[in-house]
């Protein structure tokens, strides 16, 4: 038997509550089904309003679902409650688009990366300090960054810190919401390389959301395209790229190819 997938989502429906007398709104996510195998990266693309963030928030249990199932590492993820849920949530690390908004500007990098560890009950001391230094080093930053403050570093460095913090509790699944959209291409390349290294060295599974189909086509093993709440494509990345089933996906892929194709 093959090992349980990291994430197995079936017929997921998410609907926001309307006002008391307002008509029932359309679902934000309309019956999504997909799997993420362990050690793989699933790319999610779609225009704004297509339901990407709602999907991530539901997987993080920050949003109730109307129907459907989510299994995380074989576990019935939607059934977990209270302390069991809080503990299990550590299996998921999160990195968001704007690193500066998610890092407190006045804290040092060491304090930022320590936050989740302290919240999970770790004690201050040399062991903690060592662990933080190792995390920061794994994310490509030298030890002299530990005492700098978030407001003194560049966007690419801030995103490395955000990744280090997301990995602090050694999650098996990393959720990244537009992690390179605010970065220059040279820095984007550095971060994509870093993610590939971490996937390899830590056996991480990743959910990578972006509006940039070329970025996700490069780093993902499987690809999911959303439109207005519907999953319009899901499959191995090479297969989707080679033969997109939907005109929408073809348009996204062809953007910027005019001059490049000569």
């Amino acid at each position: 038997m093959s090992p349980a997938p990291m994430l197995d989502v079936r017929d997921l429906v998410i609907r926001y509550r309307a006002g008391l007398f307002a008509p029932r709104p359309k679902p934000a996510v309309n019956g999504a089904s997909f799997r993420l195998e362990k050690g793989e990266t699933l790319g999610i693309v779609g225009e704004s309003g297509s339901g990407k963030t709602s999907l991530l928030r539901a997987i993080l249990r920050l949003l109730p679902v109307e129907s459907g199932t989510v299994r995380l590492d074989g576990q019935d993820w939607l059934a977990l409650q209270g302390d069991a849920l809080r503990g299990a949530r550590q299996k998921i690390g999160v990195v968001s688009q704007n690193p500066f908004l998610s890092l407190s500007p006045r804290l040092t990098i060491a304090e930022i990366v320590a936050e989740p560890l302290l919240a999970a009950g770790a004690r201050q001391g040399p062991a903690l300090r060592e662990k933080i230094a190792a995390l920061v080093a794994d994310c490509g930053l030298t030890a002299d960054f530990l005492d700098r403050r978030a407001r003194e570093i560049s966007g690419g460095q801030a995103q490395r810190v955000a990744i280090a913090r997301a990995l602090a509790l050694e999650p098996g699944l990393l959720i990244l919401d537009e992690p390179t959209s605010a970065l220059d291409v040279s820095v984007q390349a550095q971060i994509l390389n870093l993610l590939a290294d971490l996937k390899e060295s830590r056996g991480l599974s990743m959910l990578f959301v972006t509006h940039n189909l070329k970025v996700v086509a490069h780093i993902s093993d499987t690809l999911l395209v959303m439109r207005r709440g519907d999953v319009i494509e899901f499959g191995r990345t090479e297969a989707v790229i080679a033969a997109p089933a939907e005109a929408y996906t073809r348009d996204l892929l062809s953007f910027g190819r005019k001059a490049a194709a000569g």
Partner: protein
Amino acid sequence: MPLLDISDLCVRIPTPEGEVHAVRAVSLRIERGEIHGVIGESGCGKTMTGMATLGLAPKGARIEAARFHFDGADLREQAKALRGKRIGMIAQDPAAALNPVLSIARQMDDVIRAHRTLPREARRREAADLLAATGLPDPGRVLKSYPHQLSGGMQQRVVIAQALATGADFLIADEPTTALDVSVGAQVLALLRKLVAERGLTVLMITHDMDVIAEACDRATVLYAGRSVETGPVEAVLQKPGHPYTRALLAALPDAAPHGARLAAIEGSIPPPRTRIAGCAFAPRCPKAMPVCAAEPPPERARDRHTWLCHLPEDAA
């Protein structure tokens, strides 16, 4: 004669910590009817070049140039007079460019009234015509709307219609699609191309996105650390780049490498704008750097109308 003719533009901005060299030596020659892309990483001086051309450089900024001309007029004296008449601006965030508490009808009318003497009914027709020219399907309904009732793509079309209403024939578009979805951004770029073809507009397109250059521009200029380092027809710049920086930028794109392979990241970062630079600004990061590179300003290399600044001889590029 190029419509916009800039040679060695330099913009220094006073700050409490000393002078910031926001633009060091930018040259831009833009012919009528062309969409000219200006590309480079953040902080390389794209926006400040556009702002100086619009007469909107910060207070106290020192602007120097060997040439800084628009249609024969010296921009050092005339930029403010030309803005809103011949030179229009399309910014990244259309929501910020529109007034949230006024209807689109009112905002279009304000612009039309400032530039033309027309009776009220004719102004209303003109507003509807301009909105239709930007591809908005139901101009009457858009006129009755407020900005928040329109999508980002529709708002950007209204901003373009306002620029057309001023009668401007030269538009400076600073990252006009960055805040939009890819498919919506592609439609806005197609609209700009159509307006250039139909109305003889000329566009300076500022972007950090090579796909936008490939999709929309005729010629492109690459900026690095406040200098224009390469310029030429888009096909030449993208397919046979001469400058090692342009080549590095293109190689860093995710579609430049096979699926899953490591990307060719550019190590290091741009020099801070207060640094003094004697030779080539890219030397600390350049895989081809030679001793002369850091010491002396690089000479111009050329292949037809495609030029770049580099110590490497043309055949080694």
